[in-house]
């Protein structure tokens, strides 16, 4: 019997030896993406799996009232009308925003999109007593709806949003909130497990099928309201492949024609096989958030010294060029970058500052992760930071932990983890609130927000309040620029790198423009041999 089994395998091997991989899965215009996600993103609205979930599932199945313009790659992406065609703050009440909704839009299930649907969606993520309340969606969208007091219908295609405090950045926050079909949810009696298998949105792709944990297949929504964004490929297949080497092998062997985040050491091999390696700057940072409650970093001179100690060019070389030197919270392409003080590599100056501050050698402990979403290559990068800082007079102790454990440290905040002088956690900096405000506003002190180390400065708070109350876009831009420059002046973080969002595409993939964003538009992509 054993021999019989062996002979089957042997025959299979021999047969396989004569056959190159037939590409049934790649026939026609099928775009097959190898994602870095460990699992398929959830399909019940705001997805999980970080912004990769938003990129491939969220903004494909669904729309938000406000979308991101991903049509070009030469400047930072900004928001544009989505399911709402226009919006404005109520001049009589700055805590009220009026959104005009797009008419003639249909859900994938055929129902009409109306103002009632928007109100229902907001209740679903905010009102624990509503029958449509979904705790998972509450969790996923809370960070964007934390300032939302409620939504109400004005007429069939106009909605008013109440905010808890005046919030000039509200359109950015609502851009992250996906709208799902109440029709389908009611039909399935709010069974979200079922909904995940039969999702219905208004987005450019319709859900076709899914094999849990393995693949999700989307097809073009030919009736999409934005005719310019009806997908050009026949089918979009999403496959979770958390291992970088597996993604690379899958692309080289023709199983997928698009992979996210190839590892830097695979670039040469990919290029030599004719693959397109695409990169672009985008709003991401790889920094250390600092402890402002106790320890050396409460002294600005030491924070500045840490920034002067870093030779970011070396870091870039180590990553085969796959990063931009980080000198601020946001990359220079952001409109509110301004002219901040840049801490260029100067180890002597770093040492002098440490001496002046009376902290030489200056002992600090960093909490770091071994991997994680947006963390790039955390172990070698942290080792290099340590060696550079040690050479300039620090004594850095790295405490590695798994991503989940580091998230726990980040959420709980400095008061629960005073033993750490800094945490290495990369952040999205796509909109002004997430890019700047949350890191320095006292209202965002952990565990209530993302200001992990409890940075506090009354002047900075005043500036934040002015930004949130400024509804004139140009004036607000000036204030945001001022905030970024102040943050650099005070060296509120140790700035290291900005990722370049690398992805590799097979030569048969055409029409992709990489936007300066965490999100990307796949609709213009076609696949032709």
């Amino acid at each position, binding site marked *: 019997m054993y021999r019989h089994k062996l002979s089957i*395998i042997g025959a299979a091997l021999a047969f396989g030896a004569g056959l190159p991989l037939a590409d049934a899965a790649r026939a026609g215009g099928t775009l097959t993406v190898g994602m870095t996600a460990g699992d398929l993103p959830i399909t019940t609205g705001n997805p999980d799996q970080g912004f990769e979930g938003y990129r491939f599932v969220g903004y494909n199945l669904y729309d938000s009232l406000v979308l991101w313009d991903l049509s070009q790659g030469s400047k930072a992406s900004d928001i544009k009308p989505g399911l709402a065609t226009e919006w404005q703050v109520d001049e009589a009440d700055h805590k009220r925003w009026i959104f005009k909704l797009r008419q003639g839009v249909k859900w994938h299930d055929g129902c009409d999109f109306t103002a009632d649907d928007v109100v229902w969606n907001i209740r679903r993520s905010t009102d624990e007593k509503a029958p449509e309340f979904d705790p998972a969606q509450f969790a996923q969208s809370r960070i964007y709806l934390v300032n939302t007091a409620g939504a109400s219908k004005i007429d069939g295609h106009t909605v008013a949003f109440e905010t808890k405090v005046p919030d000039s950045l509200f359109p950015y926050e609502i851009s992250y909130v996906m709208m799902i079909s109440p029709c389908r949810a009611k039909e399935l009696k709010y069974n979200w*497990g079922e909904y995940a298998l039969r999702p219905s949105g208004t987005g450019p792709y319709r859900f076709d099928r899914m094999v849990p944990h393995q693949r999700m297949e989307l097809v073009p929504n030919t009736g999409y309201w934005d005719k310019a964004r009806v997908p050009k490929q026949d089918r979009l297949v999403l496959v979770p492949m958390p291992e970088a080497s597996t993604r690379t092998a899958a692309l080289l062997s023709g199983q997928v024609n698009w992979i996210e985040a190839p590892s830097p050491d695979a670039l040469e091999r990919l290029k030599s096989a004719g693959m397109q390696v695409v990169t672009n700057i985008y709003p991401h940072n790889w920094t250390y958030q600092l402890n402002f409650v106790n320890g050396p970093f409460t002294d600005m001179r030491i924070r500045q010294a840490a920034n002067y100690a870093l030779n970011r060019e070396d870091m870039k070389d180590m990553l085969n060029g796959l990063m931009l030197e980080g000198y601020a919270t946001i990359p220079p392409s952001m409109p509110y970058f301004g002219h901040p003080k840049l801490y260029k590599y100067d180890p002597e100056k770093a040492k002098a500052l440490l001496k002046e501050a009376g902290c030489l050698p200056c002992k600090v402990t960093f909490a770091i992760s071994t991997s994680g979403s947006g963390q790039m290559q955390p172990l070698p990068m942290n080792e290099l930071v340590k060696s550079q800082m040690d050479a300039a007079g620090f004594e850095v102790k790295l405490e590695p932990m798994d991503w989940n454990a580091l998230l726990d440290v980040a959420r709980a905040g400095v008061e629960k983890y005073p033993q750490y002088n800094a945490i290495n956690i990369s952040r999205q900096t796509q909109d002004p609130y997430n890019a700047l405000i949350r890191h320095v506003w006292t209202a965002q002190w952990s565990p209530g*927000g993302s200001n992990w180390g409890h940075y506090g400065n009354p002047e900075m708070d005043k500036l934040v309040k002015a930004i949130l109350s400024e509804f004139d876009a140009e004036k607000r831009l000036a204030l945001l620029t001022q905030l970024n420059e102040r943050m650099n002046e005070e060296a509120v973080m140790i700035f290291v790198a900005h990722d370049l969002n690398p992805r590799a595409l097979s030569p048969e993939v055409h029409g992709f423009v990489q936007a300066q964003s965490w999100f990307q538009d796949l609709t213009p992509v076609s696949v032709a041999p």
Partner: protein
Amino acid sequence: MGKYILRRILYAIPIAFGVSVVCFALVYIAPGDPLQTVVPPDATAETIEVVKHAYGFDKPIPVQFVIWLGHVLTGDFGTSIATRRPVILEVSEALANTSLLALFAVPIAFFTGYTMGAVAGSFPGRWIDRLVTGAAVVGVSLPNYWLGIVLVIVFAVESLWLPATGMGPSGSAGFDILEWSNAKFLILPVVTLAMIPVGVIARTTRAAVAEMRNQDFVQTLRAKGLTEWAVARHVLKNAMPPVLAVMGLQFGYLLGGSILVETVFTWPGSGFLLSKAIINRDVPVLQGTILTLAMIFVAVNLIVDLLQSVIDPRIRRG
């Protein structure tokens, strides 16, 4: 015999209980949050509290354990936090996928390992023994994930003969082993998986056979004029019990799914499911998978013990 089997089945109850207690405790001792998958990285403490309440994670840990155990006793393993699918469905699908690998890997591994060990043990100290023992040491020492990656590079990336990853063009839902376009996805993971137990089985068999050849009864058999083939048959049969015990353990490992091999090949089996549940702290899936795997180990060991007692009745009397 019936009493013996019943006794062994009853032993499984405290084992299952112990496994679930240890597993439950480990999940909570480890840093991180069981709601990792449902809350985004930037979630605030207030958000986490609301969600914990909604999912019942705000109750004391012993209470959570008792509730979980109560449900399990009625056959309800709960729902995955990450996918919202019933855990029983998640585990059974993954086990079916792993069993498919094991179905091929087990005979390959056992036949190869046993043959190698038997040959080496029959010619102790000779060149064939050295060769086989050397190969077995290499086999034991070789990290299987490394071997998997090398096989992928050679057979998938460089030669394009076989697919590198996954479970067919439509995933496990449409997997048809009789279709070559599906079956070829099995080859690399099966070969990699089969390499794990070959070395161990070969070494155990070699030791057992070599030891048996020095027993007095072998001299007696030869004195009675039996041919070397007939003597070898007796030696191999008597050397079987320890080999069978090792095979049983290895069979359990293979059915449990190798986390590393399944991760390298993105094979949606129980090892892959387990690793995802650990990373995501998906407690219901973690508990369900570990409990099921523990029961499989208990069942396999029971079957092996019964087989051993058939081969060697002295074991049953003991």
